[in-house]
């Protein structure tokens, strides 16, 4: 492969993005990931960078209704999209999302580093409806690692909300 690395054209990409209901018109270098844009560009540091390689789930956000690892999404690719991050889970009046309440009740975190990703993944999971059994929740949450090992408590929190919503 030729090692011609000089970009042949504009190095920045213009995009519009709606994040937690607020729309933004931005210009970013082409190689910016959605995660870096959220954290560095928009100051939304809730989404975490654990591995930066799609392996841990700490950067999970909900992009156009689907959970994704924002560390592997090019910001340029999400032009025109709607993003929901952990900062956008609570209602505008500050009332927590039922899953956030359940995480507190079930002590579903220790250091909290994986929590924003767990929450976004869990909220999407409830929408997807893969919450019929404990096995199913475990399998469909397997993309979110927790080094503190809060898994049983995370499972309990998701299961409780799924039951309340008639999804388990």
């Amino acid at each position, binding site marked *: *492969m*030729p*090692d*011609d*690395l*000089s*970009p*042949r*054209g*504009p*190095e920045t*990409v213009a995009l519009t993005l709606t994040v937690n209901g607020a729309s933004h018109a931005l210009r970013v*270098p*082409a*190689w910016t*990931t959605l995660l870096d844009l959220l954290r560095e560009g928009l100051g939304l540091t809730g989404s975490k960078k654990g591995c*930066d*390689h*799609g392996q841990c*789930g700490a950067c*999970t956000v909900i992009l156009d209704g*689907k*959970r*994704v*690892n924002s560390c*592997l*999404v*090019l910001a*340029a*690719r999400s032009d025109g999209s709607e993003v929901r991050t952990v900062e956008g889970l609570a209602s505008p009046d500050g009332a927590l999302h039922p899953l956030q309440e359940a995480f507190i009740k079930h002590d579903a975190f220790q250091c909290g580093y994986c929590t924003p990703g767990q929450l976004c*993944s869990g909220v*999407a*999971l409830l929408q*997807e409806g*893969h919450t019929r*059994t404990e*096995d*199913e929740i*475990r*399998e*469909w949450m*397997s*993309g979110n690692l927790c080094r503190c090992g809060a898994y049983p408590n995370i499972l309990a929190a998701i299961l409780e909300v799924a039951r309340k919503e008639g999804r388990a």
Partner: protein
Amino acid sequence: MRPFHYERPRALEEAIAGKTEASRFLGGGTNLIDLMKYDVERPASLLDLNRLEGLREVERDREGTLRIGALVSNADAAAHPLVREHHPLLADAILAGATPQLRNMATMGGNLLQRTRCYYFYDRLTPCNKREPGTGCPAKEGVNRIHAILGTSEHCIATHPSDMCVALAALEAVVVVRGPSGERRIRTEDFHRLPGDAPERDTTLDAREVVTAIEIPARLYGRHHTYLKLRDRLSYAFALVSVAVTMEMQEGRVSRLRVALGGVAHKPWRVPEAEALLEGRGPEEARFGAVADRLLQGARGYGHNDFKIGLARLAIARALHQAAAATPQSHVAKRIA
């Protein structure tokens, strides 16, 4: 990541015309962006396919051929009613791979073209014939637990990591591609290649060709199928060995058997002679070992991966049992039936 030029072609023709050796098509990006962060891929430009029309359909024609567009996400393909009804094997194999988040991004085309997970390939500080032809293959005498046991060459012993492609091989799918000189249809078998003396080439796709769809011919295997994936963890790990089986039955006899292995070679591994050992007779358990032996004929380990030969033998027999009994492996309840 190194700087690159980002383009968003508006039509397929524009994407093909803009493609050079030094540029890459962007699908879900889950493999490409990762490799760019490791500086293994250094494209001068990315051609983002995601806005192209006509590559997101899932359709079934009158002959029963299922056609899945190259930009359909792995998640959408696995959840699609036509896929679930007619090719549950494909849905199972996709759902056995990666995670919900990754499958939401990953595309059918990108999954076909994902690159090996060989540790040396990922590590720019080591030589690797696949990454830099002619530099050598440290895996042969190095850490090779995840490496191939079949179809290897002295130049490379990497495996193709995809679960989906193992199912596609058992389903005898066809990859539809388009390039400067028009459309080509490539059997999955001929799409991925063995390393030989050119391990830098994973597939027979030309640099300027784009994958547009995957087609799967009608098959009536009902519940006589399975995707059995064995790995270090129960979820979220690449296969050490996997087996995809479709077993078509007629009046108690196996009328067509297809078995493909994953995790053991540079491409999904099929051996028609092994399949023929069961065709035309009942699915006799006593013959499963012979099928496995024929599939694994010529297998050799490189040290850490020696265990794969014995593991594959057992996995093949178990997968044949599951297909014969019409009890496909569940990817949620992990107990192996």
